[in-house]
């Protein structure tokens, strides 16, 4: 017996249910990380969904089969109704994940959320030392508070995932980062190299590690992992490499409208949290039910299946494995979201990836030259 099973069928032939629901409760955030995946013009967003509207979304999602629920943002803790939403979600049967910077968290909240039924808290860090962490986060007190909150999360009995976004300014800290996680008693450590969307795309030259940096980091992670396995530790290291150094494509979101459904703070429903940047009209949960959004809306059907694919994807024998890669990346790098993701070496636009790699070998920009994610900078993007 090995326990696994093929994925299930949904209400329509060929379309499975949205098993993952990501609730981006707000774009408000006390931090200013220059790789934030929120839209550049987030400050333009009006009118967050109300508590009642979120409850309706949660109920509809659960009814359709969603089992994993992420509360994210922005910083979800700025929502005063978070405990109420957690309680509702848990009672509906979701596995509830809180994805937080830790800012705004207190021991009392950690315990109150546990009593409300929260299953897991993921705390993100920016580096293994206070100086670099706080410089990246754009916040002077962030690091000490994150440490305190990670300890409180552990103390309260939650499984603990610590997340570090990795880029050229902290990639040399791999061993220190993992050893910090070990001391904090993490169950999972996500070492997620920046993916270049949103603010990270804007800052790509200042964030992307060189190939040499990446290989060194990967070797360090592998060596650490072996030590952990040898010592019988259950701490799991998940190292996400940037796909800019791949020749083959990631199966982005496991396919468009296949498993994931994101609801943005204003109720816009998206097949992934970056898709908002695409020139496609997406439905809003204020106007339609999640069921009709998932199965029937033009936005969610836009890139389902493979009939939309141009060459070289159309005749490629890997198209069922990688779905042509990422639509957002194709759009950002080629101006047309229908194109093959340029990460693929068969893409006629692969030279853009090669150019980015070359730039990363020679980049010199310091942290202070990055564009930080805050409301003032955001306004520049929509005022033009």
């Amino acid at each position, binding site marked *: *017996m090995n326990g696994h099973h093929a*994925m*299930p069928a949904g209400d329509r032939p060929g379309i499975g249910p949205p098993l993952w629901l990501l609730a981006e409760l707000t774009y408000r955030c006390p931090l200013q990380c220059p790789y934030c995946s929120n839209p550049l013009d987030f400050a333009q967003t009006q009118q967050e969904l109300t508590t009642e509207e979120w409850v309706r979304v949660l109920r509809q999602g659960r009814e359709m*089969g969603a*089992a*994993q629920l992420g509360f994210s943002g922005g910083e979800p803790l700025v929502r005063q109704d978070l405990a109420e939403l957690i309680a509702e979600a848990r009672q509906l049967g979701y*596995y509830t994940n809180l994805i937080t910077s830790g800012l705004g968290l207190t021991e009392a909240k950690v315990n109150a959320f546990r009593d409300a039924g929260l299953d*897991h808290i993921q705390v993100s860090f920016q580096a293994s030392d206070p100086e670099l962490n706080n410089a990246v986060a754009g916040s002077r007190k962030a690091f000490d508070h994150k440490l305190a909150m990670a300890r409180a999360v552990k103390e309260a009995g939650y*499984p603990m995932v610590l997340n570090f976004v990795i880029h050229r300014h902290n990639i040399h800290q791999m061993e220190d980062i993992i050893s910090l996680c070990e001391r904090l008693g993490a169950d999972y450590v996500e070492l997620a190299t920046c993916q270049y969307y949103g603010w990270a795309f804007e800052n790509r030259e200042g964030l992307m590690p060189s190939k040499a940096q990446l290989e060194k980091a990967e070797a360090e992670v592998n060596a650490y992992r072996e030590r952990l396995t040898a010592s019988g530790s*259950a701490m799991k290291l998940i190292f996400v490499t940037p796909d800019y150094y791949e020749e083959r494509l990631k199966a982005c979101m496991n396919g468009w409208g296949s498993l994931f459904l994101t609801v943005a703070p204003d109720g816009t429903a998206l097949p992934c949290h970056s898709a908002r940047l695409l020139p496609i009209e997406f439905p809003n949960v204020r106007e339609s039910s999640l069921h009709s959004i998932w199965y029937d809306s033009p936005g969610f059907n836009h890139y389902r299946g493979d009939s939309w694919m141009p060459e070289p994807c159309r005749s490629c024998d890997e198209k069922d494995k990688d779905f042509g890669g990422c639509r957002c990346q194709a759009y950002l790098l080629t101006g047309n979201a229908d194109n093959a993701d340029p990460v693929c070496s068969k893409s006629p636009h692969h030279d853009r990836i090669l150019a980015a790699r070359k730039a990363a070998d020679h980049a010199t920009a310091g942290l202070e030259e990055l564009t930080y994610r805050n409301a003032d900078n955001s306004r520049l993007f929509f005022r033009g």
Partner: protein
Amino acid sequence: MGISMEQIPRLRPGFRFQWEPAQNAHVLLYPEGMVRLNGSAGAVLKEVDGQRNVADIVALLEQQFPDAGSLLEDVSDFLKDAEQQHWIVFT
């Protein structure tokens, strides 16, 4: 290393086992992850409650599936695998 009949398995903290009608299967949920279980894996994990030992679980399953013959080996193999995957721990 084998598993002794007196050992008591329980789900690893933070793991949840539940029936999902939309998937017509039992699933194991954990931080940002989900495993859809096949019928036999679901049947074993259903009896893992942190109280019953391996012998109890085998006996219960043999009662539920009288035509299956001895289930000791299948159940032990699965529990060993589940432990290696860090889904369960033994106390």
